[in-house]
């Protein structure tokens, strides 16, 4: 699954740690999501999208291979 988390985080000028604190996960979790190595649960994806004022589909995109 592709995502725009890194871009959105840069727009808000937040560090991975800061974003993690805002949604209640570790910096490692944010890093793993940004690199596409880990797909978050639906509640976490919704929390992230809501934090950036976007819908889940605007932040996360399903790839052909998923």
């Amino acid at each position: 699954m592709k995502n725009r988390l890194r871009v959105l985080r840069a727009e808000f000028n937040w560090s991975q740690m800061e974003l993690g604190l805002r949604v209640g996960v570790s910096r490692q979790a944010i890093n793993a999501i940004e690199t596409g190595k880990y797909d978050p649960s639906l509640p976490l994806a919704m929390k992230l999208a809501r934090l950036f004022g976007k819908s889940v589909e605007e932040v996360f995109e399903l790839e052909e291979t998923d």
Partner: protein
Amino acid sequence: MAEQKLDPNVRLLGQVAVTTILWAGTFVATKTDTLGHPGSLAMRVALVAIGVGGFLPVVFVYAKSIRMQDEFNQRIHYIALSIAFAVTAVVSYASDLLYQAGFIPPFPTIGTWALMVAIWFVAMIVTPRFYR
């Protein structure tokens, strides 16, 4: 006066320390010759109960510590535990066959347990590297 809540991580660390000390105490207390000899039945039952009873709180505290972590770290724990389970299963099965074939002495039960914990910790260090 408002009651000040203790940081959950600090409280957890305290619980880990207390339960580990309790377990170490019961571990030492039960390492007597009484267990291995035909002594009083009540004494032997008490020693086993103390030994197991002292260990259970450690298990509960570690389970609680995993539950307190975020979903990503819980996933890392589950993968590490799965690896530990699989490796221990293979090693214990192989060692039993090797023992029956007369190649090695019997593998102690506590050694199997220690091996699983060691692999769990190693896997906890190695697994996150695949998510960077």
